[in-house]
């Protein structure tokens, strides 16, 4: 029991650290530094926080790994990640407006059916494996992994909420999941873009700087965002929506069909105690 509380605590702490690392432009206290705009210090921030995010991610992965892994789930996760990574090749190959990503379909659905931990690892590892295979390892990887992991993890929260719908076999279940996928399609883009914001456009002042208030920063980010990845994200959100709506039901049925066989754990029946006849 104590173990579960510790796990929960660790999840919370890591998620908080991760969120702070991702959203730090909004959090920095005002006027904390006398650093000149454009100086070394402000250029280091993004890298520093990538490291912090990476640490939070590692701790989280270690925690989840400890609780979720038996041989069957390892094999299952491996194969599903392979399918997702293969799908990601498609994402790179499709011409036209980028942003469409088929990987969130499986991340959301496996998180929904197999639980938060499984969904988390599914998100994180899909990104890792496709980065390894396509050579796309870069400093943006920790943010991608963290956010994708969160997509999978949060999908599990829907489970108790939608249980009633599922039991009645109603189609609303899929519509809600599709909406969920669309939401995360947008949010993923928002968060990832946030990562590149101070980095690509540089911490020049008047634009992004230390110590400006939250509201001001949000406005600035909103304008940056609209100019850059908004269209990409709309495409991604729309793609997720359509994918889940189109393929969600059969995929859910399949995943559920296999669920019992994968989560089964053998419990040996205790051996009968041998009776020894001592009395004559």
């Amino acid at each position, binding site marked *: 029991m104590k173990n579960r509380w510790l796990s929960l605590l660790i999840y919370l702490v890591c998620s908080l650290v991760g969120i702070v690392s991702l959203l730090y432009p909004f959090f920095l206290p005002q006027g904390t530094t006398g650093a000149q705009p454009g100086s070394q210090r402000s250029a280091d921030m993004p890298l520093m926080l990538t490291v912090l995010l990476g640490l939070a991610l590692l701790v989280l992965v270690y925690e989840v790994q400890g609780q979720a892994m038996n041989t069957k789930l390892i094999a299952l996760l491996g194969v599903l990640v392979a399918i997702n990574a293969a799908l990601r090749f498609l994402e790179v190959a499709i011409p036209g407006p980028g942003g469409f990503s088929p990987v969130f379909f499986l991340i959301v659905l496996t998180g929904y059916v197999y639980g938060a931990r499984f969904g988390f690892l599914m998100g994180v590892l899909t990104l890792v*494996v496709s980065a390894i295979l396509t050579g796309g*390892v870069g400093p943006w990887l920790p943010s991608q992994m963290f956010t994708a992991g969160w997509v999978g993890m949060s999908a599990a929260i829907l489970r108790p909420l939608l249980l009633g719908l599922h039991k009645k076999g109603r189609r609303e279940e899929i519509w809600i999941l599709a909406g969920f996928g669309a939401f995360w399609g947008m949010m993923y883009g928002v968060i990832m873009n946030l990562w590149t914001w101070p980095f690509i456009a540089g911490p020049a002042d008047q634009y992004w700087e230390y110590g400006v208030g939250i509201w001001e920063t949000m406005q600035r980010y909103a304008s940056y965002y609209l100019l850059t990845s908004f269209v990409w994200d709309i495409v991604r959100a729309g793609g997720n929506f359509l994918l889940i709506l189109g393929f969600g039901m059969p995929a859910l049925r399949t995943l559920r069909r296999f669920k019992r066989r994968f989560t089964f754990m053998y419990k040996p029946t205790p051996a009968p105690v041998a009776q020894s006849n001592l009395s004559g």
Partner: protein
Amino acid sequence: MSTQLHTWTWLAWLSAALIAISVTRNLFYLTLILLCLLVVYSFIEGANQRGAYPFSLLRFGILVSVLSMLFNMLISHFGETVFLTLPEKWPLIGGPYTLEALVYGLTNGLVLFGILIAFTDFNQAMPVRMLIRLIPRAFFPVAVVISIAVTFVPTTIRQFYQIKEAQMLRGQRMTSLIDWLPLVMPLLVGGLERALQLSEAMTARGFASTAPNSGNTAHRLVMVGSMLWVMAGWVVSTRAGWETLGLGLILAGALAFLAALWWAGRLVPRTNYLKEEWRTGDVVVLTGILVLGLALFFPFEWIDRESLYYSVYPLLQWPDFDPWLATALLVLGLPAYVIGLRG
């Protein structure tokens, strides 16, 4: 595809490259670093017989730099050398356009590009199995998942084409999204069935399921603790004047984290059978990296370290240039030399 250099050497080189890039904003030095990295890239690709010219990489880098340049110029209006002015009332893009902003954007683009090439070089130099072997033992179950995934991606892709052909022969036409269903479902189900078979095979070969989080409470606590320590160090370092203390805390926290990882790794009973050899090339590169580290951080008097911290603002001027530092930076090109020597 042999690794040419020891895994640890490549790691050290990668770290050196990343540190060098993040330490400086001097355009001369940055260009030098980028050149070295590109040369290494072409040698690696040449060794892998994949064609030796980094054209696509160059194109990407140019794209990134130009975008960053333009973007910064459009949005940031800081600086003193104005060459164009748009009416102020235009949102965001109104105001003076300065050369400083342009150059600053270019610099940032180059930094990003440099990081990208460094990682790409590393990725291309190391075969996937070596990359997987780098994963700390504490993450063994995750490493197994990654191995399985990497092993199964080619199978999955092949299966996809088989399924596509088979379904075409039932008269399936790809007219709408729904028509992808008969392609996706057999892939998914087939994968699940294969996962069951695989787990059976793994079990039969003695792969043990690990008990959930047993005996590693202390390890987890230390990991979380060291992470919080790093965070504290970061917070401290943002306060003016407390930077060095913050940096020290961060470093200490990071080391503690690594130690915790190593400690957690002891819990996993496993050995690594692969023995990599240390060769002269490794010695050469590692020595070079040491020299670079000294040049960058050790306060030698004859090295003008200030030239590293060049800043575009407020007024654009030519960056300083120290020949000693430049030579030290050339160290980053050593792997190309080593690979080239091997013929």
